[in-house]
């Protein structure tokens, strides 16, 4: 593009200043590790899912009588339809894997701390949208697991006070999961990704306001920041290459390992599968649901278990930045929490027995217990670390943060006195 054209555009749209502000001169901490690649990867998978999904929708039929056949039509007759479908189905797993790592990084390094709370909360909203999209998409092949998974999950809305039955019927568009449920799930499955795209824009605007956190947890001086392009574009693309290798191994060689065999049987409302399991990315939350003997309690526990992350900025009372890199208790807690997640995932995948129910309950208690203990542990850990002596640069940053808090205008403004 010639300068003339760019000038023409710039007079009408802030093109050059956007590229400058958000790409070529966007300051990024130079010490970001590869764990900071996953936000970009999540964005890439989102685009991949939308692109493959749009083409799948051209061949898919949202109709209880036709959808299973139309998926087979895609798998057999459509040119490279099998590739589109396996990319999309594997993409769903890849999306969750990338997002969970992205979240784990935030928790590990304490990136949710001020001033990045809004990033964390928009991310939490995006996670909920992603979960809803994945859940609705799973109904579309209209296999046994699709049907019964949707039946079990919509049934949970019976826990709604007073209007439980009505809400379930309203959600399904009938007394049981059927054609009306399928068509509305398809419509919403096509809509929600665009809401996610909007949410991602908000997430990125917030990011470019507060800038990236970094492993040290300290806001770096200008000399330690480098422009995003070309340093992080090259790093992100290298990471993308690694991601694509893993992703394509699954798409081409192990696509069925991520699919439930029962979903190759057309949905049959008259026959319940012996063991209904959700996709792997829902297993820990499913385990928490099943660990509570009461329906309402289980639903509340499951909802809370996803939402607990949003409270992290309040729960973490420590003023020491940098998360696990400066705080041994965070590191220990992080790994214990991760192991607990795997245990919950295992419990969610196995049929309930006395033993797994017990393990599930202990793990559920540990899950919530760890969140409730964070305020006390973080405070105690801070006292202990300060007593032990902090590195000079950390001390300096904490003092600066404390000063800035005092400098902030008081919450009540002069005019509010009455």
């Amino acid at each position, binding site marked *: 593009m010639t300068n003339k054209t760019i000038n023409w555009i710039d007079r009408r749209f802030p093109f050059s200043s956007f590229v400058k502000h958000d790409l070529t001169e966007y300051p990024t901490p130079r010490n970001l590790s590869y764990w900071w690649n996953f936000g970009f990867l999540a964005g890439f998978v989102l685009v991949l899912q939308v692109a493959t999904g749009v083409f799948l929708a051209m061949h898919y039929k949202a109709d209880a009588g036709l959808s299973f056949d139309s998926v087979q039509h895609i798998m*057999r007759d459509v040119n490279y339809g099998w590739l589109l479908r396996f990319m999309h189905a594997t993409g769903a797993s890849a999306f969750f894997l990338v997002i969970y790592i992205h979240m784990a990084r935030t928790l590990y390094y304490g990136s949710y701390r001020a001033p990045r709370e809004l990033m964390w909360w928009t991310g939490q909203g995006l996670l909920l949208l992603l979960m809803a999209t994945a859940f609705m998409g799973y109904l579309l092949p209209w296999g046994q697991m699709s049907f019964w998974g949707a039946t079990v999950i919509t049934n949970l809305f019976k826990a709604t006070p007073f209007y439980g039955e009505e809400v379930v019927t309203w959600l399904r568009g009938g007394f049981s999961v059927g054609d009306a449920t399928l068509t509305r799930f398809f419509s919403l499955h096509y809509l929600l990704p665009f809401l996610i795209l909007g949410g991602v824009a908000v997430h990125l605007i917030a990011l470019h306001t507060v800038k990236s956190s970094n492993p040290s947890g300290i806001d770096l001086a200008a000399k330690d920041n480098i422009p995003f392009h070309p340093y992080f574009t090259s790093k992100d693309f*290298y990471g993308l290459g690694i991601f694509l290798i893993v992703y394509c*191994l699954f798409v081409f060689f192990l696509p069925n390992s991520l699919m439930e065999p029962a979903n190759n049987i057309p949905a049959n409302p008259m026959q319940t599968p012996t063991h209904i399991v959700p996709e792997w990315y829902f297993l820990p939350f499913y385990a928490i649901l099943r660990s509570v003997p009461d329906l309402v309690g289980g639903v509340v526990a499951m909802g809370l278990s996803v939402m607990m992350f949003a409270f992290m900025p309040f729960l973490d009372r420590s003023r020491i930045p940098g998360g696990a890199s400066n705080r041994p208790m965070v590191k220990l807690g992080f790994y214990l929490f991760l192991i607990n997640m795997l245990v919950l995932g295992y419990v969610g995948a196995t049929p309930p027995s006395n033993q797994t129910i017990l393990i599930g309950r202990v793990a559920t208690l540990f899950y919530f217990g760890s969140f409730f203990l964070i305020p006390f542990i973080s405070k105690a850990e801070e006292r202990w670390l300060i007593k032990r002596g902090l590195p000079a640069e950390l001390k300096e940053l904490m003092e600066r943060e404390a000063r800035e808090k005092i400098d902030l205008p008081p919450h009540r403004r002069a005019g509010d006195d009455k």
Partner: protein
Amino acid sequence: MNKFFISLMLCSFVSPVWSAEAMLETFKVDTDLPAIARGVDDLMNNCHSCHNLKYVTYLDLAKLGIDRQKIDGWRGDQPMDAPLASLMSDEAAMQSFNLVPPDLSLMTKAREGGASYVYSYLLGYYNTPDGVTHNHIFPATKMPDPLGMSTTTDHAQREEIRKTAHDIVSFLSWAADPHEQERYRLGYYVIGYLVILTLLLYFVKKQIWSRLK
């Protein structure tokens, strides 16, 4: 960092699918045309009278390279793009078995254990001392022993039945996922391409970052 990706891959290979309770016979699918051709032949003789393969058409068989004369014999006056519909109507099946025999197009993908399950199931028939036929793998089955495994005692004949089951399941594996071999072939190129691309991207990244002091 490498450690992370290796452990990531190892974790990914742990499948959440548990194997069925009964011990399945280890089975390796044959993907060469002669085995699949024998398999479809055996299937037409032993299974097709009751079971549909609604997602496989005679044209698919012809495209795969199955002998055209055989196909014409099976399809009779049906068009080439007709599916491999069974000879038995659903009503007749309901009368004899009290259920419609399941469609076989996706059978090797629709059971835990996949092809090994179907193979073990076909060979899993046995007679109790009081002369009742049962199946190890699927005790509640209503399908009569199709290959005669329960009544055959001669070793050579049993081996013959094993071979037949092997061919049938090889054909069913093709029918469940006809693009599987194409997928693998393409996969090697894609992974090869990506490995080279990623190596180049790594050097680009290294080169660019070396500008930093």
